[in-house]
């Protein structure tokens, strides 16, 4: 019979793998995990927190710019999405990054409708990722609290 720790560890492993397979995360997230150790045990959580703050700020900037109907500053939207693409790439947020690429294209062609639609998707996507990573971190905490070690997951 499985101990609680073993069950939690299996859950953690399965959930992690699913996040990669469903395209939420890519290799870069693995690179982030490599940088976490006893000296910096919350590194990944800290970086993704900064990332989600970035998302909120940049999406809000872009929404405001797109709100100026008839006088949309596409350059501003373009530079904001470039920044967001950069940070999503740095944390391994694969889907968010993909949507940023699409949004950049809409911006470059000054496709207003496309920009609005895409920005909405970016907003939904980052919030989805945020919730999923929160679940993952919760699982980690449960394992540690139960006295177990967080397994290394090879993708």
């Amino acid at each position, binding site marked *: 019979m499985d101990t609680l720790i073993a069950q939690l560890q299996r859950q953690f492993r399965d959930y992690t793998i699913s996040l990669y397979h469903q395209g939420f995360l890519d290799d870069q997230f693995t*690179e982030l995990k490599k940088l976490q150790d006893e000296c*910096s045990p919350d*590194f990944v959580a800290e970086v993704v927190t900064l990332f989600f*703050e970035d998302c909120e700020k940049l999406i809000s900037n872009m929404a405001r710019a797109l709100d100026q109907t008839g006088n949309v500053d596409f350059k501003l939207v373009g530079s904001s999405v470039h920044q967001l693409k950069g*940070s999503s790439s740095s944390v391994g947020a694969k889907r968010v990054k993909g949507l940023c690429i699409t949004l950049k294209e809409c911006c470059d062609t000054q496709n207003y409708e496309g920009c609005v639609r895409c920005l909405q998707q970016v907003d939904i996507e980052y919030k989805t990722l945020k919730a999923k990573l929160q679940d993952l971190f919760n699982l980690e905490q449960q394992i540690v609290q139960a006295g177990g070690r967080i397994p290394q997951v090879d993708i």
Partner: protein
Amino acid sequence: MAEVLRPEMLDISNDTSSLASPELLHVLAVDDSMVDRKFIERLLRVSSCKVTVVDSATRALQYLGLDGENSSVGFEDLKINLIMTDYSMPGMTGYELLKKIKESSAFREIPVVIMSSENILPRIDRCLEEGAEDFLLKPVKLADVKRLRDSLMKAEERAFKNIMHKRELEANDIYSQLKRAKI
């Protein structure tokens, strides 16, 4: 009878290495993205580097004392072994920062690495032509930093060995002269 000066007794100064401290590279990292700053700082610390991170090229120049506000007085002791800068930054770009560093007599020898999320060949060429040590595509990997560090340490080691060898030759030369003079 006068003591013969042997080469081993000549004082060979310890300050032949420009490393911040033995085995520790001091890196100045420049990036306007908070996420990337946190990331590169950790990447460098994990790679046993001393790190200073700033959020703009202007601040980097201030740190180096190249912003015209200060003379170079007090900055001679600043030992930076490597500068890593993002390319696209508001205000001054990484490319412009690279040029300013290469124009400065105090810092032009410091290797400058440019980081960019965009793989644009003319951009890469321009940076290398201007004297960039390397051009890294973001997101930067642990392996990239390790490679950089190893190549810089090897260059330091070579430079150190060259200096030591030169001093040995000089010392031997003096010793032979003294011997001939039968002191």
